[in-house]
């Protein structure tokens, strides 16, 4: 074991004095009224990641994204000019959902030259312009040029597609992401296109699952039975200490070590880890990403670096592993105490069956851990809602949880203050 250097102030939390050290209330995760404010203040005003450009491989490629948190659906499409655009997924005639397949509430994707409403056959081109109206002459004082799709602010950073539902976003996407996140410009996300996409409905507030994946204090305990190493008493006693924490505006990140299976004796490994040369931390044999040094990663220049988890405000996580693969998480609120969790694993496409098996092992292991995490959250939500205890101590390894709840409160307060100001 090695000693992690904490900041000169003595703790990570003290290094960011605005965050405070007092016990935290989780009222923001159990109040339906607060959740309604978060919908307006956060989700209708932030840049939200809705996917990646690889989901739009050709001109005319499109996908829809259901945004229950904003009571809406958007369609994201690559135009004939190659540009990525977003529109509200509603026909201008009588409000039918424009793009869907079989089930109106489910997401849809495909390739099209135009979008045709299933109801009365109105057509829109990929730029959103209305190009055909059935029996156009029956309408009154009508010019179909006035009836294009309603655009949504849309921009792309490093292949990640973002939308912003505000009438006028207060910041550009790059300003919003800030220097810590945009330092990843040039990281070869575009090479890691082999995708495993998971989804689950979770019985907790969205911020509680973010908390679970932005501290690793829980890892030696909740996941103790996962491997021979984690079950060892000395590992249990040592607990967990991250290498580096950093906060930049509403965003935050943590760097930690990761297991190095290839350096471990076999008795410390599960037999299938040794067989597949893979596990929780990914395939042991990293691909050559062809970029050296990799930009933006390990901002604390920590030795023994294994992963970075970038928590991009409000609900998007990019987790980059030292072994040359990455994960994304999204947490989409559906009510104050439920949300949809989405996880994506991205690898360099395998060259052969052996590499593919290693990726399968990483994916299967990811699911084993996530199932443990997801169920624990429901248990947390249930008891928080009892309000028997209303103040909870957070330690220095939980600094990012503290920061998330603080930022959420700031965005809600800014919104309510603006509304109060406008009403005066």
């Amino acid at each position, binding site marked *: 074991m090695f000693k992690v250097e904490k900041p000169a102030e003595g703790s990570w939390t003290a290094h960011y004095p605005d965050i405070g050290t007092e016990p935290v209330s989780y009222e923001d995760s159990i109040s339906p009224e607060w959740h309604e404010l978060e919908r307006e203040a956060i989700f209708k005003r932030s840049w939200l990641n809705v996917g990646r450009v690889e989901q739009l491989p050709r001109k005319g490629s499109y996908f829809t994204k259901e945004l229950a948190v904003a009571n809406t659906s958007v369609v994201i499409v690559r135009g004939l000019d190659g540009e990525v655009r977003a529109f509200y997924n509603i026909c201008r005639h009588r409000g039918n959902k424009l793009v869907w397949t079989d089930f109106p509430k489910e997401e849809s994707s495909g390739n099209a030259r135009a979008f045709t409403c299933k109801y009365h056959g109105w057509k829109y081109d990929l730029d959103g312009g209305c190009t055909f109206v059935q029996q156009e002459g029956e309408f009154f004082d009508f010019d179909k040029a006035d009836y294009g799709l309603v655009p949504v602010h849309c921009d792309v950073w490093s292949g990640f597609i973002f939308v912003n539902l505000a009438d006028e976003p207060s910041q550009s996407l790059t300003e919003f992401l800030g220097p810590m996140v945009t330092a990843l410009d040039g990281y070869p996300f575009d090479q890691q296109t082999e995708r495993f996409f998971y989804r689950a409905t979770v019985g907790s507030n969205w911020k509680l699952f973010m908390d679970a994946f932005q501290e690793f204090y829980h890892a030696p305990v909740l996941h103790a039975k996962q491997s021979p190493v984690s079950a060892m008493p000395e590992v249990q006693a040592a607990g967990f200490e991250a290498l580096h924490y950093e906060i930049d505006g509403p965003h935050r990140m943590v760097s930690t070590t990761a297991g190095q299976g290839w350096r471990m004796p076999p008795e410390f490994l599960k037999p299938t880890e040794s067989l597949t040369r893979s596990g929780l931390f990914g395939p042991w044999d990293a691909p050559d990403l062809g970029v050296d040094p990799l930009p933006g990663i390990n901002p604390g220049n920590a030795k023994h670096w294994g992963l970075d988890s970038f928590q991009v405000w409000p609900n998007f996580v990019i987790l980059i592993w030292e072994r040359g693969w990455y994960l994304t998480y999204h947490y989409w609120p559906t009510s104050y105490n439920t949300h949809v969790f989405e996880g994506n694993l991205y690898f360099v496409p395998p060259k052969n069956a052996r590499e593919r098996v290693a990726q*399968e092992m990483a994916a299967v292991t990811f699911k084993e851990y996530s199932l443990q995490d997801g169920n624990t959250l429901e248990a947390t939500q249930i008891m928080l809602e009892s309000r028997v205890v209303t103040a909870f101590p957070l330690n220095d390894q939980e600094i990012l949880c503290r920061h998330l709840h603080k930022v959420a409160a700031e965005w809600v307060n800014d919104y309510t203050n603006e509304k109060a100001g406008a009403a005066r």
Partner: protein
Amino acid sequence: MSTPLLPKEFSEFEAFAPTWCLPTEAERYAQRLASTMDEIQTFYDAFFPRAEEAIAYCEKFPLDELPADAERLLQLVYSLVMVSFPVEAWRQPNVPDSGAAYLDLLIEPIP
């Protein structure tokens, strides 16, 4: 004898093929939950010693041009990975304390 599903070098595993040669993770996960630990352990104990050979066999082909029998053999390896946690960690088919939680894999590489 019905038509073999696996390459002849791996014919000793034909009995497992109808149950465990499954193309998607969802099917493999469902089969794991529907199996007893005895059934899982029998498959694991039989196939694990030759799994490295099975991977080496599949590795000889381009991944997008696997012959059908080799693709089924690869699916058998995926199923071994799928049951590895029940055998090597949990001692039960489902993840402990996972209750009603689920996590559906909606998009995955094929094969």
